């Protein structure tokens, strides 16, 4: 019995698990996106494409039906109408209706925080935008033409909740049942939460009544939290677990060539590790100093030692026009020294180099090598390792002069990335506090540009600006890596970087 159960059960280890079952909740963490993804359905989902190496990955260019069987954009281009699947049911058996969809979207745009922000990225801002036409038809009115509107309805935040069930647990103080949904699911997705012990384990079982896609192969999935990467490695190597997800680069290197382990690494779209310089903190307001830093960084050493070559270099000149794209910079001490001299800092200066302790596996070697390299041009640095929550606060405060950090945008568009990281609106992720009206104009233009040629010109324009002024020096594009037993198939990379259990199977 144990062996049979083993066949239909998938054992997954991850570093840490969800802190909520409700992606709309306050303070919900990343792993919770994965839970939401598998437990809730959305109206649409993205297509899938095969990569050159044979692995599958979502295709951000195509949208496929999930709860909605079809949708049409109004002639005037001012709204979209969704037709819901008639046989879809929530886990408790309640049919899925347009009212549920509206309730869910209303909730997302009202509760504030991350869901509201994410909806806003697709110009979905007000409950009035969501109109129930009939029980199985829903119209969404556009506030403005935004090519992100439809894609934004396929991200985890746009999950559809069982409003009947949720409302039962709503209170006047808590009209959106935030408290209840945090620990209870009200979804209709392919998997149900069988048990959840926060901080240690989540067990999913297949929802047999799922209609929004092909029936998943796995009956039961156990996701265990194992913080130690060494243990993760040992477990997968010894065959004790089926999947180890989101591995550290070192683990990947060590697992490479092990016969019993299958490894898949997918570059994380729209993401990069970088060294950022706060342009409001002299002397980093001096572009020559920034360029000097860009020229002195030991890119290859960093790439080898910090991620063991697990990634895509973002330095030494571009070979194509993809985004993210390598910078023209490469290690050149003489040039760096010259730039420092030109900037009037031959003697160098002292500053602090910060990074997030939570990411120290990669951040620390990068910081150490950066520190060592900067010392060559007279910049002496004190390394400041900032624990998780403080990191958030420090980013918000924007007072770190020099940092090693990573950022990735969900929606795979360069202007989306630049909007958050370089734009003068000075979002948190513009950790360099960089402001350049010229760049802002280009980014804003690209966002709503429909003409491909013009769009391309805008994109090239802001990339060039950003790379010339180098407030942030891109280092490399990281991978999300998964290791599995050879008999596990159906792994798919998703932009949210969580496991899609629905496609996984054991042979």
């Amino acid at each position, binding site marked *: 019995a144990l062996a049979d159960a083993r066949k239909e059960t998938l*054992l997954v280890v991850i570093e840490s698990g969800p802190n909520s079952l409700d992606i709309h909740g306050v*303070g919900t963490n990343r792993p919770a996106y994965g839970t939401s993804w598998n437990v809730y359905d959305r109206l649409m989902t993205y297509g899938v494409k095969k990569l050159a190496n044979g692995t599958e990955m979502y295709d951000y260019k195509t949208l496929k039906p999930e709860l909605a069987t079809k949708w049409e954009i109004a002639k005037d281009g001012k709204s979209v109408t969704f037709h819901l699947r008639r046989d879809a049911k929530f886990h408790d058996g309640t049919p899925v209706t347009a009212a549920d969809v509206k309730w869910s979207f209303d909730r997302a745009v009202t509760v504030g*925080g991350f869901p509201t922000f994410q909806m806003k990225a697709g110009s979905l801002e007000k409950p009035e935008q969501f109109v129930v036409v009939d029980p199985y038809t829903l119209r969404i009115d556009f506030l403005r033409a935004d090519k992100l509107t439809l894609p934004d309805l396929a991200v985890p935040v746009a999950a559809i909740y069982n409003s009947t069930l949720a409302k039962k647990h709503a209170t006047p103080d808590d009209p959106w049942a935030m408290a209840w949904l945090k620990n209870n699911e009200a979804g209709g997705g392919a998997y149900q939460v069988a048990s959840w012990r926060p*901080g*240690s384990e989540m067990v999913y079982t297949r929802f047999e009544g799922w209609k929004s896609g092909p029936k998943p192969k796995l009956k039961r999935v156990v996701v265990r939290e*194992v913080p130690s990467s060494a243990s993760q490695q040992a477990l997968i190597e010894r065959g004790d*677990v089926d999947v180890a997800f989101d591995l550290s680069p070192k683990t990947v290197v060590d697992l490479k060539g092990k016969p019993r382990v299958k490894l898949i690494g997918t570059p994380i779209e729209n993401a990069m590790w970088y060294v950022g310089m706060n342009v409001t903190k002299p002397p980093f307001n001096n572009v020559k100093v920034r360029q000097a830093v860009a020229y002195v960084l030991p890119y290859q050493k960093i790439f080898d030692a910090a991620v063991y070559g697990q990634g895509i270099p973002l330095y030494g000149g571009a070979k194509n026009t993809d985004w993210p794209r390598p910078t023209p910079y490469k290690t050149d001490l003489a040039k760096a020294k010259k730039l420092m001299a030109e900037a009037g800092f031959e003697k160098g200066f002292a500053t602090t180099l910060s990074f997030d302790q939570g990411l120290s596996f990669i951040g620390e070697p990068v910081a150490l090598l950066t520190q060592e390299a900067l010392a060559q041009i007279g910049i002496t640095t004190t390394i400041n390792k900032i*624990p998780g929550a403080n990191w958030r*606060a420090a980013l918000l405060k924007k007072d770190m002069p020099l940092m090693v950090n990573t950022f990735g945008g969900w929606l795979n568009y360069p202007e989306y990335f630049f909007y958050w990281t370089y734009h003068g609106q000075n*979002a948190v992720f513009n950790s360099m506090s960089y402001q350049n009206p010229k760049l802002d104009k280009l980014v804003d233009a690209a966002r709503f540009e429909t003409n491909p040629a013009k769009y391309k010109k805008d994109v090239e324009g802001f990339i060039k600006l950003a790379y010339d002024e180098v407030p942030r020096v891109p280092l490399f594009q990281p991978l999300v890596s998964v290791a599995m037993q050879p008999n596990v198939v159906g792994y798919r990379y998703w932009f949210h970087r969580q496991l899609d259990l629905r496609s996984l199977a054991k042979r």
Partner: protein
Amino acid sequence: MNTRIFSTIGSRLLGALPSLAAVIVVTFVIMRLLPGDPAAFFAGPAASAEAVEQIREQLGLNRSLPVQFWDYLGDLAQGDFGQSFTTGQPVAADLVSRLPASLELTIVALLIAVVLGLPLGVLSATRPNSWVDQVTRLVTTTGTCLPTFFTGLVLIYVFYYLLGWSPAPLGRLDLMYSPPPEVTGFYTIDAVLAGDWEVFRSALAQLILPAVTLGFFALAPLARMTRAGLLGVLSSDYVRTARACGLSSRVVLTRYALKNTLVPILNTMGMVFSYLLGINVLVEKVFAWPGVGSYALEALVASDYAPVQGFVLAIAVLYVLLNLSVDIACGLVDRRLAR
């Protein structure tokens, strides 16, 4: 007699209240000193400054410290320890589910230490300065000198990775089993109560390496205290009296010597136990043990006030109870101490 014991216990508990109150205050203050900003954490990665402010208000973090403290006390009085940001659960629930894990680990570790440490101590004390004594001393002392995180890693490497004798360091149970119905929260005991031997075996197998890691650390104080105490007692006048009366070696060793050494041993056990509860953090981290230590560590790193406050308070209460039981046990052994 009985009423006296109750009144003693009562007055001890009353006497611990000021300490507990101070613990509450100090923890509260230290937590507010943390540089992190829970509102920023709560608000999510992309929040604007206003959004963070809004959250701050929601959480009541914009109020003055005394007011926050008063609110906290009010919540505490109702048994509400607050919410953890990291797990998203009420702290009380988290503690209830995780405390047994830590306790089970610590108790088993202590058992291992006692089962090994006491005989070693007796062995040393009955052959002072012999090579047996020296070797025992060196081994046990080395035990306390090994950083637990280091021992744990080495044990995993050897017994799991190289030899494959022990199960994966994955917490309290093999992934294939689900926990037994909860009675005590101790998986081994609950499994026995449920008659589920497979789960019992798995739970026990999972316990061994972390418990040995901790237990090895606790070995030295126990062995040492046994040795020192026993040496003292063995050279005492009353043991000499017992010998002069022709009492057999066994009776002398147990009834006269060991029993008199019990008080310092019990005290050491209490101390070791409380110390182990504290350094559980490290072992739990290495062995992915879902206990309160790793819970508190994560919360601390995340500036998550409530879990840390709750944890410290829970441990402080535990210490009070522990010390009380040690004192009662000592009082039972040596009536002079009960007065």
